[in-house]
Protein backbone atom coordinates (compact mmCIF):
# COMPACT_ATOMS: atom_id res chain seq x y z
CA UNK A 1 0.00 0.00 0.00
CA UNK A 2 1.31 3.44 -0.92
CA UNK A 3 -0.94 6.45 -0.48
CA UNK A 4 -0.47 9.34 -2.88
CA UNK A 5 -2.28 12.43 -4.05
CA UNK A 6 -2.55 14.01 -7.48
CA UNK A 7 -3.64 17.63 -7.86
CA UNK A 8 -4.79 19.03 -11.17
CA UNK A 9 -3.15 22.43 -11.62
CA UNK A 10 -5.38 23.05 -14.65
CA UNK A 11 -8.62 22.57 -12.69
CA UNK A 12 -7.57 24.30 -9.46
CA UNK A 13 -9.01 27.81 -9.15
CA UNK A 14 -7.09 28.73 -6.00
CA UNK A 15 -10.20 29.14 -3.83
CA UNK A 16 -8.44 27.81 -0.70
CA UNK A 17 -11.40 25.63 0.27
CA UNK A 18 -8.89 22.81 0.80
CA UNK A 19 -7.09 24.98 3.34
CA UNK A 20 -10.24 25.74 5.31
CA UNK A 21 -11.43 22.13 5.11
CA UNK A 22 -8.11 20.96 6.54
CA UNK A 23 -8.08 23.56 9.30
CA UNK A 24 -11.60 22.53 10.30
CA UNK A 25 -11.06 18.78 10.10
CA UNK A 26 -7.75 18.79 11.94
CA UNK A 27 -8.29 21.60 14.46
CA UNK A 28 -5.33 23.48 13.05
CA UNK A 29 -4.57 26.43 15.36
CA UNK A 30 -5.59 29.87 14.11
CA UNK A 31 -2.88 31.49 12.00
CA UNK A 32 -1.40 28.15 10.91
CA UNK A 33 -2.07 25.86 7.97
CA UNK A 34 -1.16 22.33 6.96
CA UNK A 35 -1.96 22.96 3.29
CA UNK A 36 -1.82 26.16 1.28
CA UNK A 37 -2.27 27.49 -2.24
CA UNK A 38 0.66 28.77 -4.29
CA UNK A 39 0.16 30.97 -7.36
CA UNK A 40 3.02 31.02 -9.84
CA UNK A 41 2.94 33.56 -12.67
CA UNK A 42 5.54 32.71 -15.27
CA UNK A 43 6.47 33.86 -18.79
CA UNK A 44 7.04 36.98 -20.87
CA UNK A 45 4.26 39.56 -21.16
CA UNK A 46 1.75 39.12 -22.75
CA UNK A 47 2.41 35.36 -22.87
CA UNK A 48 1.96 34.73 -19.17
CA UNK A 49 1.05 31.44 -17.62
CA UNK A 50 -0.54 31.03 -14.22
CA UNK A 51 -0.15 27.83 -12.25
CA UNK A 52 -2.20 27.21 -9.13
CA UNK A 53 -0.98 24.56 -6.75
CA UNK A 54 -2.58 23.32 -3.57
CA UNK A 55 0.52 22.25 -1.61
CA UNK A 56 1.03 20.24 1.53
CA UNK A 57 3.42 17.65 2.96
CA UNK A 58 4.72 15.48 0.10
CA UNK A 59 4.67 12.31 2.24
CA UNK A 60 8.13 11.64 0.84
CA UNK A 61 9.38 8.13 0.21
CA UNK A 62 12.84 9.24 1.32
CA UNK A 63 11.74 11.66 4.01
CA UNK A 64 14.54 13.81 5.47
CA UNK A 65 12.30 14.66 8.43
CA UNK A 66 12.09 10.99 9.43
CA UNK A 67 15.82 10.57 8.98
CA UNK A 68 16.86 13.52 11.12
CA UNK A 69 14.35 13.05 13.96
CA UNK A 70 16.41 12.26 17.09
CA UNK A 71 13.61 10.50 18.94
CA UNK A 72 11.75 8.60 16.23
CA UNK A 73 8.68 10.82 16.69
CA UNK A 74 8.59 11.42 12.93
CA UNK A 75 7.94 8.06 11.35
CA UNK A 76 6.44 6.25 8.39
CA UNK A 77 2.97 4.94 9.05
CA UNK A 78 0.85 2.53 6.99
CA UNK A 79 0.85 3.38 3.32
CA UNK A 80 3.93 5.58 3.64
CA UNK A 81 2.15 8.43 5.44
CA UNK A 82 4.68 10.43 7.47
CA UNK A 83 3.33 11.11 10.95
CA UNK A 84 4.57 12.76 14.15
CA UNK A 85 3.96 11.04 17.47
CA UNK A 86 3.17 14.01 19.69
CA UNK A 87 4.42 12.59 22.97
CA UNK A 88 7.72 11.53 21.43
CA UNK A 89 8.37 14.92 19.80
CA UNK A 90 10.71 17.17 21.79
CA UNK A 91 10.19 20.19 19.52
CA UNK A 92 13.85 20.45 18.54
CA UNK A 93 12.95 21.74 15.07
CA UNK A 94 15.36 19.48 13.15
CA UNK A 95 12.55 18.12 10.95
CA UNK A 96 11.35 21.66 10.19
CA UNK A 97 14.87 22.53 9.04
CA UNK A 98 15.11 19.34 6.99
CA UNK A 99 11.95 19.83 4.90
CA UNK A 100 12.69 21.48 1.54
CA UNK A 101 8.94 22.17 1.17
CA UNK A 102 8.67 23.87 4.59
CA UNK A 103 5.57 21.75 5.13
CA UNK A 104 5.99 21.49 8.89
CA UNK A 105 5.42 24.01 11.64
CA UNK A 106 5.79 24.21 15.37
CA UNK A 107 2.36 23.77 16.98
CA UNK A 108 1.67 26.30 19.77
CA UNK A 109 1.52 23.33 22.16
CA UNK A 110 5.17 22.57 21.39
CA UNK A 111 5.21 19.52 19.16
CA UNK A 112 5.70 19.65 15.39
CA UNK A 113 2.65 19.37 13.20
CA UNK A 114 1.99 18.75 9.51
CA UNK A 115 -0.41 17.25 6.97
CA UNK A 116 -1.28 13.66 7.82
CA UNK A 117 -3.30 12.94 4.65
CA UNK A 118 -6.17 13.05 7.21
CA UNK A 119 -5.07 9.64 8.45
CA UNK A 120 -8.13 9.46 10.73
CA UNK A 121 -10.40 9.61 7.66
CA UNK A 122 -8.22 7.48 5.40
CA UNK A 123 -8.20 4.66 7.97
CA UNK A 124 -11.98 4.32 7.67
CA UNK A 125 -11.93 4.43 3.90
CA UNK A 126 -12.67 8.12 3.37
CA UNK A 127 -10.63 10.64 1.41
CA UNK A 128 -8.69 13.46 3.07
CA UNK A 129 -10.84 16.52 3.91
CA UNK A 130 -9.17 18.71 1.26
CA UNK A 131 -10.00 16.19 -1.47
CA UNK A 132 -13.65 15.99 -0.44
CA UNK A 133 -14.06 19.75 -0.07
CA UNK A 134 -12.55 20.74 -3.42
CA UNK A 135 -15.34 22.39 -5.47
CA UNK A 136 -13.63 21.67 -8.81
CA UNK A 137 -12.78 18.07 -7.85
CA UNK A 138 -9.17 18.72 -8.80
CA UNK A 139 -7.63 16.36 -6.25
CA UNK A 140 -7.24 12.62 -6.55
CA UNK A 141 -6.30 10.43 -3.62
CA UNK A 142 -5.72 6.73 -3.18
CA UNK A 143 -3.39 3.78 -3.11
CA UNK A 144 -0.78 3.67 -5.87
CA UNK A 145 -0.53 -0.11 -5.51
CA UNK A 146 -4.21 -0.37 -6.47
CA UNK A 147 -4.51 0.21 -10.24
CA UNK A 148 -8.20 1.05 -9.78
CA UNK A 149 -7.68 3.91 -7.30
CA UNK A 150 -8.47 7.46 -8.52
CA UNK A 151 -4.86 8.55 -8.18
CA UNK A 152 -3.47 5.54 -10.11
CA UNK A 153 -6.00 6.07 -12.88
CA UNK A 154 -5.35 9.77 -13.36
CA UNK A 155 -1.57 9.33 -13.30
CA UNK A 156 -1.86 6.78 -16.11
CA UNK A 157 -3.50 9.25 -18.48
CA UNK A 158 -2.14 12.64 -17.50
CA UNK A 159 1.23 14.35 -17.54
CA UNK A 160 2.47 15.20 -14.08
CA UNK A 161 5.38 16.60 -12.13
CA UNK A 162 6.60 16.47 -8.55
CA UNK A 163 8.12 19.35 -6.58
CA UNK A 164 11.93 19.56 -6.37
CA UNK A 165 12.56 15.86 -7.07
CA UNK A 166 16.25 16.85 -7.26
CA UNK A 167 16.19 17.21 -3.48
CA UNK A 168 16.10 13.41 -3.44
CA UNK A 169 12.99 13.22 -1.29
CA UNK A 170 10.89 10.95 -3.58
CA UNK A 171 7.69 12.97 -3.13
CA UNK A 172 4.26 11.34 -3.41
CA UNK A 173 2.36 14.53 -4.21
CA UNK A 174 1.82 14.74 -7.96
CA UNK A 175 0.85 17.87 -9.84
CA UNK A 176 -1.03 17.26 -13.08
CA UNK A 177 0.11 19.69 -15.77
Amino acid at each position, binding site marked *: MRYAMAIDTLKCVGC*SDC*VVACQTENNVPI*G*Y*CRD*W*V*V*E*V*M*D*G*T*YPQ*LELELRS*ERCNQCGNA*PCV*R*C*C*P*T*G*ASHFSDGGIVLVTQ*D*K*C*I*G*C*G*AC*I*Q*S*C*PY*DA*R*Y*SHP*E*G*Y*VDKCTFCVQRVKVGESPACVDACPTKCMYFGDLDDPGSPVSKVLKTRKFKT*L*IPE*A*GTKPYLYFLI
Partner: protein
Amino acid sequence: MREEIIISGRMNPNIDPYLHIWHWQIPMYLFLGGLAAGILFLSSYYIVTGKEGKYPTASYVSTLIVPFLLVLGLGFLFLDLKHKLYFWRLYTTIRLESPMSWGAWILMLITPLSFLLAAINLKKVRPGWKWKYPLLEILDQFFEKYRKAIAWILVIAAPILGIYTGILFSAFNARPLWNTSILGPLFLVSGLSTGAAVNILFTKQHAEKLAYSRIDLILIGIELFLITHMFMGFKASTQVQIESANLFLGGPFTASFWVLVVMLGLVIPAFLEILELRKFKIPSLVPAGLVLIGGLILRFILTDAGQMSRWLY
Protein backbone atom coordinates in the same frame (compact mmCIF):
# COMPACT_ATOMS: atom_id res chain seq x y z
CA MET B 1 11.21 40.63 -19.81
CA ARG B 2 10.58 37.23 -18.35
CA GLU B 3 8.41 37.41 -15.27
CA GLU B 4 8.20 34.97 -12.43
CA ILE B 5 5.97 35.88 -9.56
CA ILE B 6 5.33 33.36 -6.83
CA ILE B 7 2.67 34.08 -4.25
CA SER B 8 2.20 31.60 -1.45
CA GLY B 9 -0.87 31.54 0.73
CA ARG B 10 1.11 30.03 3.57
CA MET B 11 1.96 32.26 6.53
CA ASN B 12 2.94 29.88 9.30
CA PRO B 13 4.68 31.67 12.20
CA ASN B 14 8.48 31.16 12.19
CA ILE B 15 8.25 29.41 8.80
CA ASP B 16 7.19 32.28 6.52
CA PRO B 17 8.36 34.49 4.94
CA TYR B 18 11.74 33.20 6.10
CA LEU B 19 12.36 30.14 8.17
CA HIS B 20 13.37 31.20 11.66
CA ILE B 21 12.71 28.24 13.88
CA TRP B 22 16.19 28.24 15.45
CA HIS B 23 16.91 31.45 17.30
CA TRP B 24 19.82 32.56 19.49
CA GLN B 25 19.89 29.39 21.59
CA ILE B 26 21.27 27.15 18.84
CA PRO B 27 24.32 29.28 17.90
CA MET B 28 25.08 29.76 21.60
CA TYR B 29 24.90 26.00 22.12
CA LEU B 30 27.05 25.31 19.05
CA PHE B 31 29.61 27.88 20.18
CA LEU B 32 29.85 26.49 23.71
CA GLY B 33 29.94 22.90 22.41
CA GLY B 34 32.70 23.77 19.95
CA LEU B 35 34.66 25.67 22.60
CA ALA B 36 34.35 22.77 25.05
CA ALA B 37 35.44 20.33 22.34
CA GLY B 38 38.44 22.56 21.54
CA ILE B 39 39.59 22.82 25.16
CA LEU B 40 39.05 19.11 25.80
CA PHE B 41 40.88 18.04 22.67
CA LEU B 42 43.95 20.19 23.38
CA SER B 43 44.00 19.06 27.02
CA SER B 44 43.55 15.37 26.31
CA TYR B 45 46.06 15.53 23.46
CA TYR B 46 48.74 16.90 25.80
CA ILE B 47 47.87 14.38 28.50
CA VAL B 48 47.93 11.45 26.07
CA THR B 49 51.25 12.52 24.57
CA GLY B 50 52.76 13.18 28.01
CA LYS B 51 53.27 16.90 27.46
CA GLU B 52 51.04 18.06 30.30
CA GLY B 53 54.06 19.31 32.26
CA LYS B 54 55.04 21.61 29.44
CA TYR B 55 51.50 22.87 28.80
CA PRO B 56 49.79 22.95 32.21
CA THR B 57 47.26 25.64 31.21
CA ALA B 58 45.82 23.67 28.31
CA SER B 59 46.14 20.34 30.11
CA TYR B 60 44.72 21.33 33.50
CA VAL B 61 43.59 24.94 34.02
CA SER B 62 41.25 25.37 31.05
CA THR B 63 39.53 22.04 31.63
CA LEU B 64 38.07 23.45 34.85
CA ILE B 65 35.62 25.63 32.92
CA VAL B 66 34.50 22.90 30.50
CA PRO B 67 31.74 21.42 32.72
CA PHE B 68 30.24 24.91 33.07
CA LEU B 69 30.44 25.48 29.31
CA LEU B 70 28.73 22.18 28.58
CA VAL B 71 26.02 22.60 31.19
CA LEU B 72 25.34 26.12 29.94
CA GLY B 73 25.28 24.87 26.35
CA LEU B 74 22.90 22.06 27.22
CA GLY B 75 20.78 24.64 29.03
CA PHE B 76 20.53 26.66 25.83
CA LEU B 77 19.69 23.53 23.88
CA PHE B 78 16.95 22.79 26.38
CA LEU B 79 15.63 26.34 26.01
CA ASP B 80 15.42 25.80 22.26
CA LEU B 81 13.15 22.77 22.63
CA LYS B 82 9.50 23.65 22.13
CA HIS B 83 8.15 20.49 23.77
CA LYS B 84 10.46 20.68 26.75
CA LEU B 85 8.91 18.13 29.08
CA TYR B 86 9.61 15.38 26.58
CA PHE B 87 13.36 16.05 26.28
CA TRP B 88 14.11 12.69 27.90
CA ARG B 89 12.84 11.04 24.74
CA LEU B 90 16.29 11.80 23.29
CA TYR B 91 17.67 9.13 25.56
CA THR B 92 15.15 6.39 24.90
CA THR B 93 16.50 5.65 21.43
CA ILE B 94 19.66 5.78 19.33
CA ARG B 95 19.04 7.00 15.81
CA LEU B 96 22.15 6.63 13.69
CA GLU B 97 20.76 8.69 10.81
CA SER B 98 19.99 11.68 13.03
CA PRO B 99 22.86 14.08 13.81
CA MET B 100 20.77 15.46 16.69
CA SER B 101 20.70 11.97 18.22
CA TRP B 102 24.46 11.61 17.78
CA GLY B 103 24.91 14.97 19.51
CA ALA B 104 22.68 14.03 22.42
CA TRP B 105 24.58 10.81 23.02
CA ILE B 106 28.06 12.21 22.52
CA LEU B 107 27.21 14.92 25.05
CA MET B 108 25.95 12.21 27.38
CA LEU B 109 29.44 10.68 27.16
CA ILE B 110 31.50 13.87 27.23
CA THR B 111 29.69 15.86 29.93
CA PRO B 112 30.33 13.40 32.79
CA LEU B 113 33.89 12.84 31.57
CA SER B 114 34.49 16.59 31.55
CA PHE B 115 33.32 16.79 35.18
CA LEU B 116 35.65 13.92 36.04
CA LEU B 117 38.62 15.47 34.25
CA ALA B 118 38.01 18.85 35.87
CA ALA B 119 37.74 17.22 39.30
CA ILE B 120 40.98 15.27 39.04
CA ASN B 121 42.74 18.29 37.55
CA LEU B 122 41.71 20.56 40.41
CA LYS B 123 44.63 19.54 42.63
CA LYS B 124 47.06 20.20 39.79
CA VAL B 125 45.79 23.77 39.55
CA ARG B 126 45.33 24.42 43.28
CA PRO B 127 47.75 22.09 45.09
CA GLY B 128 46.26 22.71 48.51
CA TRP B 129 42.70 21.82 47.44
CA LYS B 130 40.76 19.60 49.86
CA TRP B 131 37.41 18.00 49.05
CA LYS B 132 34.76 18.65 51.66
CA TYR B 133 33.62 15.04 51.87
CA PRO B 134 35.97 12.09 52.35
CA LEU B 135 34.14 10.11 49.66
CA LEU B 136 35.06 12.70 47.04
CA GLU B 137 38.67 12.47 48.19
CA ILE B 138 38.62 8.71 47.67
CA LEU B 139 36.98 9.05 44.26
CA ASP B 140 39.51 11.72 43.28
CA GLN B 141 42.40 9.45 44.22
CA PHE B 142 40.80 6.55 42.37
CA PHE B 143 40.13 8.38 39.10
CA GLU B 144 43.41 10.29 39.27
CA LYS B 145 45.09 7.03 38.26
CA TYR B 146 42.95 6.89 35.14
CA ARG B 147 43.66 10.40 33.85
CA LYS B 148 45.36 9.03 30.76
CA ALA B 149 42.50 6.61 30.03
CA ILE B 150 39.96 9.44 30.35
CA ALA B 151 42.13 11.55 28.06
CA TRP B 152 42.24 8.75 25.52
CA ILE B 153 38.44 8.64 25.34
CA LEU B 154 38.26 12.43 25.12
CA VAL B 155 40.91 12.75 22.44
CA ILE B 156 38.52 10.81 20.19
CA ALA B 157 35.18 12.04 21.56
CA ALA B 158 36.05 15.77 21.58
CA PRO B 159 36.63 16.02 17.80
CA ILE B 160 33.38 14.11 17.26
CA LEU B 161 31.60 16.74 19.37
CA GLY B 162 33.35 19.55 17.50
CA ILE B 163 32.58 18.16 14.08
CA TYR B 164 29.01 17.30 15.06
CA THR B 165 28.26 20.97 15.72
CA GLY B 166 28.82 21.50 12.00
CA ILE B 167 27.23 18.27 10.80
CA LEU B 168 24.07 19.24 12.65
CA PHE B 169 23.73 21.93 9.96
CA SER B 170 25.33 20.23 6.97
CA ALA B 171 23.01 17.22 7.11
CA PHE B 172 20.06 19.34 5.95
CA ASN B 173 19.89 19.33 2.19
CA ALA B 174 16.79 21.52 2.45
CA ARG B 175 19.04 24.46 3.48
CA PRO B 176 21.54 24.85 0.65
CA LEU B 177 23.90 27.11 2.61
CA TRP B 178 24.35 24.46 5.29
CA ASN B 179 24.45 21.54 2.92
CA THR B 180 28.23 21.47 2.52
CA SER B 181 30.50 18.91 4.11
CA ILE B 182 33.01 21.69 4.81
CA LEU B 183 30.84 22.92 7.67
CA GLY B 184 31.86 19.99 9.92
CA PRO B 185 35.62 20.62 9.62
CA LEU B 186 35.05 24.41 9.70
CA PHE B 187 33.19 24.27 13.01
CA LEU B 188 35.72 21.79 14.41
CA VAL B 189 38.66 24.04 13.52
CA SER B 190 36.81 27.11 14.76
CA GLY B 191 36.08 25.28 18.03
CA LEU B 192 39.74 24.29 18.41
CA SER B 193 40.76 27.87 17.68
CA THR B 194 38.43 29.26 20.38
CA GLY B 195 39.79 26.58 22.72
CA ALA B 196 43.35 27.76 22.01
CA ALA B 197 42.17 31.34 22.61
CA VAL B 198 40.93 30.39 26.08
CA ASN B 199 44.35 28.86 26.80
CA ILE B 200 46.01 32.11 25.66
CA LEU B 201 43.76 34.02 28.07
CA PHE B 202 44.40 31.73 31.03
CA THR B 203 48.14 31.14 30.79
CA LYS B 204 50.56 33.14 32.89
CA GLN B 205 53.77 31.97 31.22
CA HIS B 206 55.02 33.74 28.15
CA ALA B 207 56.53 30.63 26.51
CA GLU B 208 53.23 28.76 26.88
CA LYS B 209 51.29 31.69 25.52
CA LEU B 210 53.47 31.79 22.44
CA ALA B 211 52.90 28.08 21.88
CA TYR B 212 49.12 28.53 22.02
CA SER B 213 49.33 31.57 19.79
CA ARG B 214 51.24 29.51 17.23
CA ILE B 215 48.59 26.78 17.35
CA ASP B 216 45.83 29.38 17.03
CA LEU B 217 47.59 30.98 14.09
CA ILE B 218 47.71 27.66 12.23
CA LEU B 219 44.04 27.01 13.03
CA ILE B 220 43.02 30.46 11.78
CA GLY B 221 44.92 29.74 8.57
CA ILE B 222 43.00 26.48 8.12
CA GLU B 223 39.73 28.28 8.86
CA LEU B 224 40.40 30.90 6.19
CA PHE B 225 41.29 28.13 3.76
CA LEU B 226 38.05 26.26 4.56
CA ILE B 227 35.93 29.42 4.21
CA THR B 228 37.50 30.15 0.82
CA HIS B 229 36.84 26.59 -0.30
CA MET B 230 33.29 26.72 0.98
CA PHE B 231 32.52 29.72 -1.24
CA MET B 232 34.39 28.24 -4.19
CA GLY B 233 32.30 25.11 -3.82
CA PHE B 234 29.07 27.09 -3.62
CA LYS B 235 29.87 29.20 -6.65
CA ALA B 236 30.64 26.08 -8.68
CA SER B 237 27.51 24.28 -7.50
CA THR B 238 23.81 24.43 -8.35
CA GLN B 239 21.69 27.58 -8.53
CA VAL B 240 20.38 27.17 -4.98
CA GLN B 241 23.92 27.05 -3.58
CA ILE B 242 25.09 29.92 -5.78
CA GLU B 243 22.24 31.97 -4.35
CA SER B 244 23.02 30.94 -0.81
CA ALA B 245 26.64 32.04 -1.32
CA ASN B 246 25.31 35.34 -2.66
CA LEU B 247 23.82 36.01 0.78
CA PHE B 248 27.45 36.71 1.72
CA LEU B 249 28.63 38.13 -1.59
CA GLY B 250 26.48 41.21 -1.90
CA GLY B 251 23.47 39.91 0.04
CA PRO B 252 22.26 40.86 3.53
CA PHE B 253 25.07 39.07 5.40
CA THR B 254 27.97 40.53 3.39
CA ALA B 255 29.08 43.25 5.81
CA SER B 256 28.54 41.30 9.03
CA PHE B 257 30.33 38.19 7.76
CA TRP B 258 33.37 39.73 6.12
CA VAL B 259 33.89 42.49 8.70
CA LEU B 260 32.97 40.77 11.96
CA VAL B 261 33.89 37.15 11.27
CA VAL B 262 36.67 37.25 8.69
CA MET B 263 38.40 40.56 9.49
CA LEU B 264 37.84 41.01 13.24
CA GLY B 265 37.53 37.32 14.11
CA LEU B 266 40.28 35.82 11.94
CA VAL B 267 42.57 38.20 10.01
CA ILE B 268 43.23 40.77 12.75
CA PRO B 269 43.86 38.23 15.54
CA ALA B 270 46.12 36.29 13.16
CA PHE B 271 48.03 39.51 12.43
CA LEU B 272 48.35 40.28 16.15
CA GLU B 273 49.53 36.73 16.86
CA ILE B 274 52.18 37.04 14.15
CA LEU B 275 53.34 40.29 15.76
CA GLU B 276 53.44 38.56 19.13
CA LEU B 277 55.54 35.71 17.76
CA ARG B 278 57.87 38.38 16.38
CA LYS B 279 58.39 39.60 19.97
CA PHE B 280 56.03 42.57 19.92
CA LYS B 281 54.09 43.06 23.14
CA ILE B 282 50.41 42.35 22.55
CA PRO B 283 47.87 42.17 25.38
CA SER B 284 46.53 38.62 25.09
CA LEU B 285 42.96 39.73 25.72
CA VAL B 286 42.81 41.38 22.28
CA PRO B 287 43.57 38.49 19.87
CA ALA B 288 41.99 35.86 22.13
CA GLY B 289 38.88 37.96 22.73
CA LEU B 290 38.50 38.64 19.01
CA VAL B 291 38.82 34.93 18.17
CA LEU B 292 36.15 34.06 20.73
CA ILE B 293 33.73 36.78 19.60
CA GLY B 294 34.40 35.92 15.94
CA GLY B 295 33.63 32.25 16.58
CA LEU B 296 30.38 33.20 18.26
CA ILE B 297 29.32 35.57 15.46
CA LEU B 298 30.23 32.96 12.81
CA ARG B 299 27.69 30.60 14.34
CA PHE B 300 25.03 33.28 14.71
CA ILE B 301 25.40 34.36 11.09
CA LEU B 302 25.43 30.82 9.70
CA THR B 303 22.36 29.91 11.75
CA ASP B 304 20.37 32.85 10.41
CA ALA B 305 21.67 32.80 6.84
CA GLY B 306 21.24 29.03 6.53
CA GLN B 307 17.58 29.32 7.41
CA MET B 308 17.16 32.02 4.78
CA SER B 309 18.69 29.84 2.04
CA ARG B 310 16.18 27.58 0.35
CA TRP B 311 15.16 25.60 -2.70
CA LEU B 312 13.34 27.46 -5.42
CA TYR B 313 10.30 25.86 -6.92
